[in-house]
């Protein structure tokens, strides 16, 4: 177990290096002028004759490894370049928007885990029964509706027709409060900050704006978790130890909820973790539809406006989060499965 964690930790820098290399490799398609924004921190540097000097300085016309080395050095120092689409340093954009995305995904994953696992257990217990079949079809429907269709339909109904759930992150008046001096942004997650500031109206307003994106994001994930839980639950229910548990005279409720579910939860936890990471990618569509200012909508916007440094920066952050997230998931898995933990 310890050696497993050490091995994973040792691999981490290698993977991170490979990741940045891979990202940067794709910039080979760009001209030095296009790439330059990824190196500068201030747009005033990009004026007139200075451009050629900078291209020379960073070796943008030289071989790939020189360019990559210079870029990597900047990244490590926290300089992700200048975002042409938002006219701000990329790192600042990410710093502002990442908490917003995190807030959204955390709210989205919690119901997914609850509902997905619960329904998966129900489906497995009624294996091939009516409930199982209905859940199967509903789950497949979940797989089959793409995020942009579902999001638009939700927007259509709850905003277009009913006017209940507006896009964006906050109403105008709430924005005024949040960006005023008296409102401390402790975490960047507005619902939490609002509570910490004791401002209930802002909290409710932020929550109201979160509902539609949460619905969109979570609908696409709970189906997957349902299927995984169902199949690992079915597998668990077919094991010998379930027969033993029944032979002990335990009630069916205990057999299912204690003996089978604990085993089924091990793979389900892993999947839930990966789902959370996947959701961070899934927010690109959702945030764009609902005009939610997170890194997802930023990546789409940056891509559309040829903001190369913005896209590069977001990609690095996404890769970082994914790799570390996967590591945490793997370690958690090892921790909750006694066979691995002690092996």
């Amino acid at each position, binding site marked *: 177990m310890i050696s497993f964690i050490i091995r994973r930790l040792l691999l981490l820098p290698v993977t991170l290096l490979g*990741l940045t290399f891979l990202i940067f490799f794709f910039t080979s398609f760009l001209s030095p002028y296009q790439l330059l924004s990824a190196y500068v921190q201030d747009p005033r540097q990009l004026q007139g004759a200075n451009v050629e000097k900078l291209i020379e300085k960073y070796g943008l016309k030289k071989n790939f490894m020189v360019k990559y080395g210079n870029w990597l050095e900047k990244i490590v120092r926290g300089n992700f370049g200048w975002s042409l689409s938002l006219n701000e340093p990329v790192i600042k954009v990410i710093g502002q928007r990442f908490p917003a995305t995190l807030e959204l995904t955390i709210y989205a994953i919690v119901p997914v885990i609850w509902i997905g696992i619960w329904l998966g257990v129900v489906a497995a217990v009624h294996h091939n029964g009516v409930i199982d079949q209905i859940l199967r079809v509903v789950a497949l429907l979940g797989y089959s509706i*793409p995020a942009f269709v579902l999001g638009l339909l939700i927007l259509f109904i709850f905003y277009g027709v009913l006017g209940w759930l507006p896009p964006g992150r906050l109403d105008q008046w709430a924005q005024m409060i949040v960006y005023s001096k008296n409102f401390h942004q402790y975490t960047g997650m507005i619902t939490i900050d609002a509570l910490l500031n004791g401002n209930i109206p802002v909290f409710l307003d932020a929550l109201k704006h979160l509902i539609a994106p949460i619905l969109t994001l979570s609908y696409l994930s709970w189906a997957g978790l349902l299927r995984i839980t169902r199949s690992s639950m079915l597998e668990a229910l077919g094991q010998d130890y379930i027969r033993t548990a029944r032979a002990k005279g335990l009630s069916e409720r205990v057999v299912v909820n204690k003996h089978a579910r604990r085993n089924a939860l091990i793979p389900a936890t892993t999947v839930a973790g990966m789902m959370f990471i996947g959701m961070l990618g899934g927010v690109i569509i959702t945030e764009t539809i609902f005009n939610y200012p997170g890194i997802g909508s930023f990546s789409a916007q940056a891509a559309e406006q040829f903001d190369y440094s913005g896209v590069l920066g977001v990609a690095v952050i996404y890769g970082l989060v994914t*790799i570390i997230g996967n590591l945490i998931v793997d370690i958690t898995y090892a921790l909750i499965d006694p066979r691995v933990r002690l092996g």
Partner: protein
Amino acid sequence: MEGFVKVLKKLMRNPTSIAGLLLVLLFVAIAILAPVLAKPPYPDTPYQMPQNGWSSVPQPPSHEDIFGTTEGQYDIYYGIIWGTRTAFKLGIFVIGLALIIGLFVGTISAYFGGWVDEVLMRVTDIFLAFPFLVGVIVIVTMLGPGLNHVMWALVIFYWMGYARLIRGSVLEVKENDYVMAGRALGTPGARIITRHILPNSIYPILIQVSMDMATIPLTAAALSFLGLGAPVGYADWGQLVSFSRNWIISSSGGNPFAYWYTITYPSLAIILYAMGWNLLGDSLRDILDPRMLI
């Protein structure tokens, strides 16, 4: 072959898998018959949706445009019919290439083992370290938008699943001594692949392909929706949906219900198409995945 017949028989026993099969066949038929169902006005550029006028306001279904038109007067019916072809084109191209790369990487990795395996799997991990859509967006940004670029971007970030799957089955086959015997006798690699490895992994691949035939076009459609995919006017479901955005939320004034057709028909096409493949893939999994056979 016998196995296929048996699988088919089992598929025909279950109403949901029959539904999946029928939906898939329906879309295959639409794709094949596209030139008949929606005759292209300019045969050289059939994927370009014809425009019936220039008004920016969508027009409701009429005798001429049975599903109505989008903003800019693109015929929705035409877009859906030819969009089916776009979906199949994308699916077949991307999955085909991803499968080839996966076969290559997976086989080499498992066959040689040792550090070759270690390196290839770490590289695979790095590709997997991106959320799929993020990876694709990076490439499309660098290459510039366009359907071809989208296809390549999808391939580059989609082969890993197949590589892992195939690596797994090769490792399984490797245990069988007859392959070892075959290698000792100098059986060429290609023959080992077609004789031993493919038959062993054909069913998991089949399940995966079936699911991916839904995923890939859907992802491409999502990119079009974001404005990163097909060029304006190209017959593509994602683009049709994106045309509806401004009209179905009342911000542009008036009753959003008035423009229901701009979202309903393209969405329905996408959902039914994905539904068909997913039902099929799911039924195959039920039949073929031994874990499910309790």
